[in-house]
């Protein structure tokens, strides 16, 4: 993967992952605040899911920064990039899957909550991780779309767009072997989705 992507783009992805992570942490914070006031468990689950997803994105930020500095500044010396990719991305996979599972858990009707126990998260090689992530987020998108059609307000549309962007991020990374531009588009969609989430948070918190 490193040979296909221009080295300078890792600097851009570092900014994307860091920004997305910060927005995710903000979402987690506001959801936690809402759960403390309203005593609503769904807000707590939402907070936890975004906290974990954001930690995953922070790991990606670290990997991107390291790859850029190693290839651009130190010309390849340092910890083996293959080793870093393996452990770093494995950490990201696990954190993201747990985060997405929590989101699915939040949206599942009470009677079906045990379903999440049967999702094969252990089956997470690179391609399968993206497929499982895409499927999990698709369920979240469907629930979010239903909510958007009911509420018909901009805030719900912004959240739906954020989840769609996240799903497309995983789908395009799956298709990266066909064209390196998929990686670029995937990351642009990721930041677009999180910026949409940020806009929603600003609107929700305005006086």
């Amino acid at each position, binding site marked *: 993967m490193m040979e296909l992507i221009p080295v300078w783009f890792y600097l851009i992805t570092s900014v994307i992952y860091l920004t997305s992570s910060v927005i995710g942490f903000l979402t987690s914070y*506001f*959801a936690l605040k*809402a759960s403390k*006031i*309203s005593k*609503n468990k*769904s*807000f707590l689950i*939402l907070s936890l899911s975004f906290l974990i997803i954001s930690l995953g994105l922070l790991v990606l930020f670290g990997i991107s920064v390291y790859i850029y500095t190693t290839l651009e500044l130190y010309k390849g010396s340092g910890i083996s990039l293959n080793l870093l990719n393996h452990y770093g991305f494995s950490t990201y996979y696990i954190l993201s899957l747990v985060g997405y599972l929590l989101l699915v858990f*939040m*949206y599942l009707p009470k009677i079906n909550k045990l379903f999440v126990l049967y999702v094969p998260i252990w089956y997470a090689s690179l391609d399968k991780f993206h497929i499982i992530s895409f499927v999990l987020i698709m369920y979240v998108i469907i*629930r*979010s779309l*239903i*909510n*958007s059609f*009911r*509420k018909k*307000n901009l*805030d*719900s549309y*912004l*959240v739906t767009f954020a989840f769609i962007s996240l799903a497309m991020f995983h789908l395009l990374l799956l298709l990266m072997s066909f064209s390196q531009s998929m990686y670029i588009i995937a990351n642009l969609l990721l930041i677009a989705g999180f910026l949409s989430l940020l806009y*929603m948070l600003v*609107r*929700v*918190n305005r*006086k």
Partner: protein
Amino acid sequence: MDILFIIQKEKGKAKPTRILYGANLSHSSLKEYLNYLTSNGFIQEVKENEHTFYTLTQKGYGFINESRKIQRLAEAFGIPFD
């Protein structure tokens, strides 16, 4: 919370009867809730020309604002919120 919204709707000052009908409460429940809200600093009782009113305090206004934000967040994510 309904009581706070009713008082806010009445431009920050409302009579007990207005709150009673607006929140659809019994006399005993209303008294209990008003005592709770007063003792916790969300509203205060004022007397004007032998009439009793309840007004929102800064804490009450603050709580309404936070509740509205939570409601908007709940609607954005499709989380049931009462």
